[in-house]
């Protein structure tokens, strides 16, 4: 499964990569913000995106809105914090499929991915 990690923190991307590799996902691509992600989608064709919320250039919400204009089905998991609670409704309406709140454990991330893929009918 191709997973796109969109986060401006390289450390966070590395942590996610490490967890996803532990979970058996090896086809991973990284983007440092929404703009970067949009530019990589065409070539990478992700089957799942983990989207951070606060990013420079293009934030997570703008990315989701832009992405959903052309792709209604690829599952999007929002990686967020309690501080972004007020914007969650907006994110849900914009087309986010699930959330994982930082900090999280590998188990929790695995659970969220499985849940999201099942909900979206993606065969892993």
């Amino acid at each position, binding site marked *: 499964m191709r997973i796109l990690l969109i986060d401006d923190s390289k450390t966070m991307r590395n*942590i996610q990569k490490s967890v996803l590799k532990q979970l058996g996902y090896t086809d991973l691509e990284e983007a440092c913000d929404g703009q970067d992600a949009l530019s990589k989608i065409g070539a990478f064709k992700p089957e799942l995106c983990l989207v951070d919320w606060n990013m420079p250039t293009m934030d997570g919400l703008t990315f989701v809105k832009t992405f959903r204009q052309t792709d209604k089905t690829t599952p999007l998991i929002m990686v967020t914090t309690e501080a972004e609670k007020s914007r969650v409704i907006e994110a849900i309406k914009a087309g986010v499929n699930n959330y994982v709140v930082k900090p999280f454990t590998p188990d929790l991330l695995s659970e969220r991915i499985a849940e999201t893929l099942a909900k979206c009918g993606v065969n892993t």
Partner: protein
Amino acid sequence: MSNANCDIDDLLKLSIDKQKLNAVLRIEPNPSNIPITQDALCAYLEGSDIHAQCILNKEIDQLAELAMAEPHHAHEMIVVKGKPPVEGINAGFEFSDELKARIENIAKREEAYRKAEQENTLPTDADNEDNEKTIDFYNESPFLIVSKGDLIGSIVEASPGEDGINVHGQAIPTKPGKDLPDLIDSSLKLDDQGNVHARIAGHLTHAGMRIRISPTLEVGSYVDFSTGNIDFPSEVIVNEGVRDRFCVKAGENIEIRKLVEASALDSSQDIILHNGMAGRDTGTIRTGRDLKAGYLEGVEASIAGRCEVQKEITNCKIMIAGTLESPNAALRGGETCISKGGTIGSIGSVQGVKTDVIVGWIPEIEKKIRLAQDLRPKIEAAIAKQTQEFETLKKSLGKPSREQETEIEFMKFEIGIIESKLVDLDSAIDRLGQIIREHAAHKLNVKSMIFAKTIIWLPGFKITFENDVKGELSLDLNKSGKPIVTRNGNSEPMNTIARVIADDRVLPIVPPKQDEFISDDSNDEFTQAA
């Protein structure tokens, strides 16, 4: 005219004092009425090598008039005056108003102390003052203690003085005022305005014309009513001891050469007691680093570093954040908590005094772990409750509207938030556990004996000694966290020498967590506090 002049010379007699600053002119009786005029007198003085500027014209007039009015009598008068030199003033020092007031108060205290000592009226307890209730002998210090940067005073510069002149017009040299090259040293600094400030904190002394700040306060004999309580920013050395109820507080080391009675010692660095402290259950010690003492008796102590006691620790309550390094000392009675283990001569006593020793304990961290552990079930219960409500709502809605779907998703997000708190909490417990693993040690070496009625707590265990155990031994936990004793190089379970029961007075060692916690921030309360 010529004859008359000769005659007048016979009548006049000039006397000059030793300093050559005054000259008296005497006119003998003048029955022949030889004319005596001011000019004649002046001419005589000039002929006697008198400097014109020193002649007192008014007195010359008076003398001449008097001599003419009463020619049958002799007359004399000071008619010449030189000018004495004005001596220069030596450089001096003017204390600031605040220090002047303090110096005055110190003088009053010393006077009151002398009086009280002579009359045997020194206070007998901490609440008393002197008889007039004007001096608090405990809290008013006889030492002039200054902080870095304090204004001490100003230097008054030496004046050069002014030369004088004698009756002959010769200069009398003045003595210029002396500068004081040793007035201040490197402990003080002089600014452009002539003001002197403290370069260091310490004890200001002003013996003669030498002003110094010593970073060390040396008390000549005892800390008692003569010194009051000591609160000093750097090192304190007491050449004798400390009397009951007095306090010594220092920003650096405290060193006391003789006996410390039931008093309070507080140092931000080391405390060295060459003799020891007889605290009688009220003496206290707090160190920011190590404690070295001959003995401790009835003392409550908090030691941030190592504790080295030579002879005995009797009935004390001691918290040692470092190691106990007292291989020759007997630890009898009381409660001794040691964060990093160490070595002691013997524990307990022949008489069976109850002696508690707690090893590998860091109370501040443990408190936080316990708090976090208490919180965990509450968070788990909150997650369970929210999840149950979520499931119930989801089922009850059947096919939810778009609006309801959004609400359900938001509820899920909120459950996610609580779950993340649990992750945070577990992470904090793990990190606190790591601090204990890194900073606590639970190995205690006993050089000669553990007496019956000694109780030793190791992480997770209470070890009660019901019989004396002789010989050198080492108490520790093995890799599985179980208590073991090592004698002659052989380790065996602790229960071969003592009764061992599980006990969490010292929390069992928290094993490192396997799961990797994921967060890009680590600013949770527990970790920060730790």
